[in-house]
């Protein structure tokens, strides 16, 4: 089975958030100006990933996935996420992109879960990111929320499928996850979308077990829907637009840690017009080289999946972009080649400034694909600008 670059990156990100919350990080401050709680930190990715996994279940061997249960939460594992990105077109074919991700983190191992004296007492912390790329106006909007997984404020359940944090939610009809309805709105930006898979689910890695690093257990359970037909409404700059497009959904849970020599990742999820979907991530090591755990998958129009490893793929950075405050520099122009598949792509963002300036800063944005095939997709990059060893800064 295919290893999963996507899961790797998401895992790292979620682990990061969990640790941010867990450790407090000494830089937890709450700002009144932005209107909501923010956990602001300046830690580096690798620093935040040094986590304690004692007491949690680990992903050590392939397992049988059962549905609808596996749409729901897996509280025995420390981190978990429901991740969706999509590229959309407006009524006049203007490009829009969105990201809605809900993370679940166990603050304490499940067997230590306290007998709740109140619905509010919980060791489950939820975190969500919602971002919209407004291609028409070249504007990027990103929001972050935290919520406890108690008192009905945030949570996840398999039947009927629902994951939510306040008024942000992903919900299915009674018996299934699909058509999946995504709803999120904040400060005049919002989505209300319906997602229907056009390809079967892909189990990543080895039958859904995706190895993240050396050592047993440094892995996740991971599956994806690489192409979901999407339609609905998008609210941006005061207008409500009808949109259609394709989305990508990742589901992943694990109790895993980033190796000490790993500092971040670059992740590509590309939907090509020829019907193929390509995903590839490379974990960057402190010396700037990609880790051997970098992986990918290529999914054919019929849903057949072929795993990729580091030797199958080459990525070359053509240009970089520095955040307005000058602290983070990201690659923003690549060539991505998979010679065995006759893939030679030029990947460029719709516009460079798609950085989420949230508690852990990262870049996640809408990209255009040209070359041997055209298409659209998303790229996620973390770990840039946090330490001097960043390969591109």
């Amino acid at each position, binding site marked *: 089975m295919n290893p999963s670059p996507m899961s790797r990156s998401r895992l790292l990100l979620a682990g990061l958030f969990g640790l941010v*919350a867990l450790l407090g990080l000494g830089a937890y401050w709450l700002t009144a100006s932005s209107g909501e709680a923010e956990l602001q930190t300046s830690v580096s990715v690798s620093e935040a990933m040094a986590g304690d996994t004692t007491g949690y279940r680990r992903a050590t061997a392939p397992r049988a996935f059962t549905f609808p249960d596996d749409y729901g939460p897996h509280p025995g594992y420390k981190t978990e996420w429901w991740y969706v990105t999509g590229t959309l077109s407006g009524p006049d074919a203007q490009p829009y992109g969105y990201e809605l991700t809900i993370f679940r983190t166990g603050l304490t191992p499940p067997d230590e879960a*306290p007998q709740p004296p109140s619905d509010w007492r919980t060791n489950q912390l939820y975190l969500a990111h919602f971002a919209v790329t407004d291609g028409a106006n070249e504007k990027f909007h990103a929001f972050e929320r935290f919520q406890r997984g108690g008192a009905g404020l945030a949570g996840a359940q398999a039947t009927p499928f629902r994951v939510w944090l306040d008024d942000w939610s992903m919900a299915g009809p009674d018996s299934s996850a699909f058509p999946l309805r995504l709803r999120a709105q904040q400060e005049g930006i919002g989505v209300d979308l319906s997602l229907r898979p056009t390809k079967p689910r892909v189990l990543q890695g080895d039958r859904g077990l995706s190895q993240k690093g050396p050592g047993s257990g440094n892995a996740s359970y991971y599956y994806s829907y690489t192409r979901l037909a999407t339609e609905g409404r998008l609210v941006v700059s005061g207008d409500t637009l009808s949109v259609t497009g394709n989305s990508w959904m990742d589901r992943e849970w694990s109790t895993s840690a980033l190796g000490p020599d790993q500092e971040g990742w670059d992740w590509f999820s590309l939907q090509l017009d020829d019907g193929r979907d390509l995903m590839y991530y490379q974990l960057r090591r402190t010396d700037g080289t990609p880790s051997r755990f970098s992986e990918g998958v290529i999914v054919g129009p019929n849903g057949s999946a072929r795993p990729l490893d580091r030797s199958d793929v080459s990525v070359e950075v053509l240009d970089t972009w520095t955040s307005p405050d000058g602290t983070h520099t990201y690659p923003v122009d690549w060539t991505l080649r998979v010679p065995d598949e006759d893939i030679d792509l030029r990947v460029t963002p719709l516009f460079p400034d798609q950085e989420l300036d949230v508690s852990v800063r990262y870049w996640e944005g809408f990209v255009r694909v040209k070359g041997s095939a055209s298409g659209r997709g998303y790229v996620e990059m973390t770990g840039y600008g946090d330490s001097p060893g960043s390969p591109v800064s």
Partner: protein
Amino acid sequence: MTLLHRSSRRYLTRHPWLMGLSVLGVAIGVAVVVAIDLANTSASRAFELSAETVTGAATHQVVGAGGALDDDVYRRLRAAGLRPSAPIVEGYGSLRRGDRTFQVVGIDPLADAPFRPYLGTGAGSDLDLGTFMTDDTALLSARTAEALGLASGDTLRVDIEGTTHAVVLSGLISPQNERTRRAVANLLVVDVSTAQRLFDQAGTLSRIDLLAPAEGSAQRAYLDRVREVLPDGAQLRRSDTRTETVAQMTKAFDLNLTALSLLALIVGAFLIYNTMTFSVVQRRALIGRLRALGVTRGEVFRLVLGEAAVLGVVGSGLGLLLGVVLASGLVQLLAQTINDLYFVVEVSELSISAWTLAKGALLGVGTTLAAALPPAQEATAASVSTVLRRSTRETTLRRRAPGWAGVGLLVAGAGSLLLLVTEQSIWAGYGALFCVLVGTAFMIPWAVVGLSNGVRPLLGRVAGVIGRMAARGVVTNLSRTGVAIAALTIAIAATVGVGVMIDSFRGTVTNWLEQSLQADVYVQPPSLVFRRSTATIDSTVARRLRNVEGVKGAYSVRRVTVQADVGRTDLVAVEPGPETADVYQLKAGSPESAWPAVRAGPSVLVSEPYSYRYDVGVGDTLRLQTDRGQQAFAIKGVYYDYGSDLGVTLMSRSTYEQYYDDRGVSGLAFAAADTTSVDALIADMRTSVAGLQDVLIRSNRALRETSMRVFDRTFTITTVLRLLAIAVAFIGVLTALMALALERRREMGVLRATGMTPPQVGGYLTLQSSLMGAIAGILSLPLGYVLAYVLVFVINKRSFGWTLQLTVPSDVLVQSLVLAVVAAFLAGLYPTWRMARSSPALALQDE
């Protein structure tokens, strides 16, 4: 320095004792006023500061109909995307360590930042979200932790309503600015889940904080969105209304303390008047000569006022210092009283405001100058020749005494009129009281002449010539004796009035408690606010107690605060039993119709203070916020209740449960079976709930005693004020008699020269001052009664709406009389001693 100034200085320094005492009198008067003001200000500052801090940036709040709000409301707000919003569960608890009361605030660390940013800003703060949210942990101000010798990781023992909880100190709060640092000194910050556990209120919140946009139309739109989401029971209100309500609660209480503190200053004013009068009279010869030398009336006038100003300034300055010292003692007494009666407030320091000090100084100097005006006028008004002769003045005064009495009568009459034409104003009540005091003071010289002349034959028979002389002397020195007696009369009358008022109050409360406490055993959770306890008895405890063998009947009381159309209302839900009609005495409405109505449905009774405060009565309708929305309740009766001056609305338990979701109980009352002794039942009850919530299980008598102890505690400040007024009066009498004695050295010389022995002169003087004391004592009784009457039927009624039975205890009257005579006697000792020792020859050399 001009000749006049030098003469003035010389005069002041030649009478150090007299001037010193006058200064002291002013100083005490100012000190009392300043101290009360400072204590009041400090208490309300402390409350405001903590309220402001806890409210933080919230502009609006969602509150429940009763004390609690279903936490589903918060879910609804969040699900509607209404952010920022933050849940709060709050209450009070005491920390075993240091025995301090803390405001326990349950927050959601993930939602709280926009409201209370200071909670997370500690430099190097290692707030561990995991621990904070999943364990019973708390944050405490760094400074408080240091003061209590606590460090992160220590286990705190927190007592809440009789249950001790262990909470681990997981972090320290150290806000950036000093003001906030002070404000958080008494905060214990916990997670919402922890707070729900501590206060045993799973599923409910105290309130939800909101941050509405500042701009008008945006704010309206926002609030409309909020209202759309809120269920019937929940209510949206501005966050500052809470502080306002609280200020409203203690308004009457504060006002009465301020008025009483002014009393000491008024007595002090008499003192100044006396001293200045004396100084003028004593220097009449000098003033006459000065006038003859061409000094103008204006200059003389300014001279006298200037001297008074010196006394006033020195006295006020001293008074400010004394006031601050006194205030640091009073503020804790005051805080205790507020805690007993109204709400929890922890006053950790005195906040000294420049404005309070300025007011005190202005009041001191102003009063002094006002009191010196008549003597200054006196000094300038008389023609040159008559100023030289003192007897002229005494004769004039005696002749004018009846006229003054008439004026006094008019003033007192005006005061009474003031009472008749006003209905609610407390200040008018005190204004009237002041008029009566001043009016009486005008009448006193006339009364002194009458009384002295009346007792002269009697004293003559008892003590011969000396007795007749003593009586006669009081009249012939009327310019001095009159003022001294007036000062003493007023001071004693004030103590009689306040004493009788407290006693009447106490008697009324005692009767009421006897009437209303008819069950055998009472059970309450410990509460920080004695009179308005909304603490809840643990449900297990309640169930076990009801099942103890020997319990014949059990009744419960629930006390909560709800919102009514008229304002925040203390609501009491009772389980009415057959005896209930006896327990609550109706002032309006008939028990036959009121109780069945209250049992049956949406009808309530209101307590007398409530009826007065909100001007509602039988036949009116009260709209209360309930969990089913706003609901109209017909008022079927007004009952006597002396438990709370804020007033109470009473409904039956069944009605309460129909309209409110709360099922808690604040108090239980049990009747013992005939075969069971109350003591045995109490012992059994204690055994049955051992190890559970530490509730107070008390017999009827023990509860009554506790109530009276609290009652007495709440009057401690009043008693202190009363004693201080007496102290000032005592000083007044001392200075008056000293002045008199100094001035009569020549007369004494003559008496000695004509053959009176020193003991005879001593006896003469002692007898005379005792006579003055007796006159003051006798005059103070009717005046004291009038004051008590006004305090009981006007001031108390207007302030709190209570009907009290005026009882005049004979011991208060006897005490006052004795106090007057003893004070005068003691005050006469020193002058007597001095005069008896003085050489007649020296005294006669005067001229």
